[in-house]
């Protein structure tokens, strides 16, 4: 049931998880891009038939575990982002990279706001505006993520409808 496309998607998602846990110097920690979300957004656009909200939700749960957060916190935010991408994927595919990046900026801000909201209810919300920096750095990195993943996909598994 797992074709070459899904396999390469799973491998890149695992890679994104590793990047999201990689130790960074203190000054860079505030700017760490949201790798897992970026990679999932790409695969939802490329393979909406196999990568969608359910996989995003499971990946979000893993993020919760790796962040020591409440179970469901990142899962909810990530799943909603992927839902919007999934519904709009045909429109998104024809948009330019810059337009995609702008949409992704707003979607990631929404995701972070959801996570922040839950942390706030729990009583340990961060009080710095730097908290929203990952959305910006992720949006700025989007064109490169897109191109790298597209080339990977074309190299290893050609059969898509994109």
């Amino acid at each position, binding site marked *: 049931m797992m074709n070459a496309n899904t396999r390469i998607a799973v491998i890149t998602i695992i890679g994104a998880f590793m990047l999201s*846990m990689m130790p960074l110097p203190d000054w860079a920690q505030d700017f760490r891009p949201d790798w897992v979300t970026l990679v999932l957004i790409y695969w939802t656009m490329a393979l909406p038939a196999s990568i969608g909200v*359910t996989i995003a939700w499971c990946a979000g749960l893993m993020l919760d575990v790796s962040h020591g957060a409440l179970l469901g916190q990142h899962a909810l935010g990530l*799943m909603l982002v992927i839902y919007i991408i999934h519904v709009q994927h045909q429109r998104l595919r024809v948009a330019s990279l810059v337009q995609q990046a702008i949409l992704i900026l707003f979607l990631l801000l929404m995701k972070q706001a959801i996570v922040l909201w839950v942390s706030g209810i729990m009583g340990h919300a961060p009080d710095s505006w730097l908290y929203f920096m990952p959305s910006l750095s992720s949006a700025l990195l989007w064109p490169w993520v897109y191109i790298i993943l597209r080339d990977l996909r074309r190299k290893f598994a050609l059969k898509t409808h994109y």
Partner: protein
Amino acid sequence: MQTLFLQGPSVTLRALTLVIASIGLMTLDHRWGQMENVRNAMSSVLYPLQYTIDLPIRLYHWADETLSTHQTLLENNRRLEDLYLENRVRLQKLDILEKENLRLRELLRATPKVAEEVLIAEIINVDVDPYRQLIIINKGSDDKVYISQPIIEAQGVIGQTVHVSSTSSTVMLITDASHAIPVQIDRTGLRAVAFGTGKIDQLDLRHIPHNADIRKGDTLITSGLGGRFPANYPVAVITHIERSPDEAFVTVTAEPLALLDRSREVLLVWHNQPQTTQDIDDER
């Protein structure tokens, strides 16, 4: 097979179900803490990834040890031997004092002191969340680690475990914004609670009255109240006191003694069994 209309109502329906599932999960996790098993299973999946990330750093330390010169090793060895001798001498005195203390306690029929057991764990070098003070260590329930077990290092208390899976545990540092530790000032015995601030080098002491005898430079030790942390371990040193007349309490900040962001090895402490003089004799 590829269908033409992917975004039917089923996606929306699935998304809605997952929203409800997320809210349900968060409630279960927060209110009743019943999701530990699920979390543990998922940590076991993440552990290989975390281990792989940590591997280069581990390799570096290994290479550093293996490739160090004979001369350095000799020097190290000599230094450690000196230190060992010095500590032995101090311990002799401490042994006698400890026994005397226990005898006196028995005479007074006071509650027996608790024995403590320790195990060394290594910190796995992965980033968790820049806005939480959490670390991952490489010991878990396989080594009898339990939830809210105290973690210390050579300089003082580090924190307590919050999630335990079979091979790794998540430790909340004492500086996490949702952490608080009961302490007392070793000079006066004044008890207080030290709250984490979310900054790695700062703890806040709240509800200290204006007339309390408290000075800059006082050392805070664990008071053992609450039963989570064993008593008399150093926690922090007071760095700043502000007595402003329009505030109900004094503003006191302290700096943790443990090297929270630099240590590589930590100690897990078990402190539940009461101890007798016999136990101390057996230990020697």
